[in-house]
């Protein structure tokens, strides 16, 4: 079924009218309620009432992750604090985390788009869903929860981890739908085999996987392992969390809910729009959000877009799976990791930054492993093993505190980390995504 057929299947002209209406209201709202945006709009020479149609969006300034960080915590909010009902936080590139706030209407919007996601993946109203995304400050768990509530599904909120229990719940309650990260789906298949459970005999028939990039070959692996349909969900906390775009059963691009999240694909260097089918950076404007509406937010995700109507009947534009990033962010077990965060920790401990390298691997058990190699320098070398192991453990503890991901720290000899063009190569990603 299609949750919001009137907009999801609207013809393009009608959709543009809707988008224009939203944008016409959004710009004055932001201008009068958010001093940071008022300044940005004035700097770009845009008067609030000059925005009359969705085509005017090209005249608006971009918003970046740096804007969010620079105006932390509340600078980009348009709604007053007393109207904010829920807050989520994700780790930032350095220092400040990224904070997002939802008004009651924003939560209703989130519920609506997540209900669209669930239907798009193939959920039916009498289905049971096991939500194995983390509940808490991470938007994954609660986003799925709200959508499932909206749709009236039976919800099993297992959150992430405790794999044996996840599998028992699957067997006991027979949910047809599972939501988790794709790497966790593969990990659970391995664990199931260890426990003597044949994953192909499992109950999940539809998987909604996201929060990390994954390829069609991983999709094939998951579908073969679990005998299920594996679909991709896209979202980011700055925009709403999960619920920005979702694949339908045809798995031919992710339907982006463009009546509320207006997409543009640009050349990240020039800011110019690229043609449909060409790779570029995804830029999103939240047309109806109240808490923190964002204008032309640079997601840094590289995708392409098509406006052709899908076989499923939805007219919404479709974006490709994420093909890369314009920055050096990597995603590990659903958590965003920037090398700059690790640099920050090392500088804090050592005063200056030693050469380091992040090695990400998805080894035997298919969960991502992060190893941080740190080159030993004379100024912190000691003849006593205990000082070196203490140093290693301090680095490990502090990196884990910042990233919320377990890491292994290994001290290595100087010059063993490969340099490229004088700078050492910061990330080695050995995973097959």
């Amino acid at each position, binding site marked *: 079924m299609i949750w919001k057929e009137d907009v999801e299947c609207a013809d393009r002209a009608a959709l543009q009218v809707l988008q224009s209406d939203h944008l016409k209201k959004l710009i004055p709202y932001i201008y009068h309620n958010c001093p940071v945006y008022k300044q940005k709009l004035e700097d770009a020479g845009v008067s609030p009432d000059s925005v009359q149609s969705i085509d005017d969006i090209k005249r608006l300034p971009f918003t970046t992750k740096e804007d969010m960080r620079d105006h932390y915590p509340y600078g980009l909010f348009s709604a007053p604090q007393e109207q904010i009902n829920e807050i989520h936080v994700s780790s930032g590139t350095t220092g400040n985390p990224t904070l997002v706030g939802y008004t009651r209407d924003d939560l209703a919007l989130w519920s609506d788009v997540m209900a669209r996601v669930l239907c798009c993946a193939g959920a039916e109203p009498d289905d049971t869903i096991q939500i194995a995304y983390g509940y808490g400050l991470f938007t994954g768990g609660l986003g799925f929860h709200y959508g499932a509530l909206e749709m009236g599904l039976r919800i099993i909120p297992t959150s992430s981890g405790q794999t044996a229990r996840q599998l028992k719940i699957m067997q006991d309650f027979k949910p047809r739908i599972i939501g988790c990260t794709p790497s966790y789906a593969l990990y659970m298949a391995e664990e199931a085999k260890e426990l003597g459970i044949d994953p192909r005999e499992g109950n999940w028939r539809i998987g909604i996987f996201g929060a990390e990039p994954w390829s069609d070959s991983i999709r094939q692996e998951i579908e073969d392992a679990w005998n299920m349909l594996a679909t991709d969900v896209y979202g980011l906390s700055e925009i709403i969390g999960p619920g920005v775009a979702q694949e339908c059963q045809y798995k031919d691009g992710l339907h982006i809910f463009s009546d509320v999240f207006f997409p543009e694909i640009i050349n990240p260097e020039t800011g110019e729009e690229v043609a449909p089918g060409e790779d570029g950076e995804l830029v999103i404007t939240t047309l109806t959000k109240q808490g923190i509406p964002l204008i032309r937010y640079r997601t840094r995700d590289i995708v392409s877009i098509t406006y052709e109507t899908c076989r499923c009947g939805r007219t919404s534009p479709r974006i490709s799976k994420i093909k890369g990033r314009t920055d050096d962010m990597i995603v590990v077990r659903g958590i965003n990791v920037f090398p700059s965060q690790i640099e920050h920790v090392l500088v804090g401990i050592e005063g200056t930054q030693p050469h380091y390298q992040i090695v990400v691997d998805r080894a035997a058990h298919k969960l991502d492993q992060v190893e941080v190699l740190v080159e*030993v320098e004379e100024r912190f070398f*000691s*003849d006593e*093993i205990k000082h070196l192991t203490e140093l290693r453990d301090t680095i490990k503890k502090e990196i884990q505190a910042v990233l919320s991901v377990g890491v292994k720290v*290994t*001290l*290595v000899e100087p010059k063993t980390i490969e340099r490229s063009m004088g700078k050492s190569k910061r990330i080695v990603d050995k995973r097959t995504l």
Partner: protein
Amino acid sequence: MKITQISVFLENRKGRLHEVCSLLGDNGINIRALTVAETESFGVLRIVVDKSDEAVALLRENGFVANFTDVVAIEVGDRPGGLAAVLKIFATNDVNIEYMYAFVEKHSDKALLVFRFEDADFAQQVLARHSISVVTRKEIEGL
């Protein structure tokens, strides 16, 4: 009198110890005493050589992390209970030993041991008080 130990950081990698030893050997530096402390991923090689300054310069030139550490070399009677007698003095005088190891060859009829003390100066006072002979830098170089 303190003598100089050279400490070298080593990854647990095949052939790494061999590389250090052949580098020193090829340059005419003789290892007098040696020990390796290891963890699961790295180790620290501790050596006493005849030409310390030269050895450290050479190691650093070749990309190793190497430091000087002050240690004390002590002659101990080469007989049952010889080491225990010395250790008893340390224990009763609150001298803490970080680690210790033995020399490759003997100096006269006594065994030669290297001690890394928590406080080398204090340890030397105690040694002097108990008339335990320590080996000088010159003697090490002449070994």
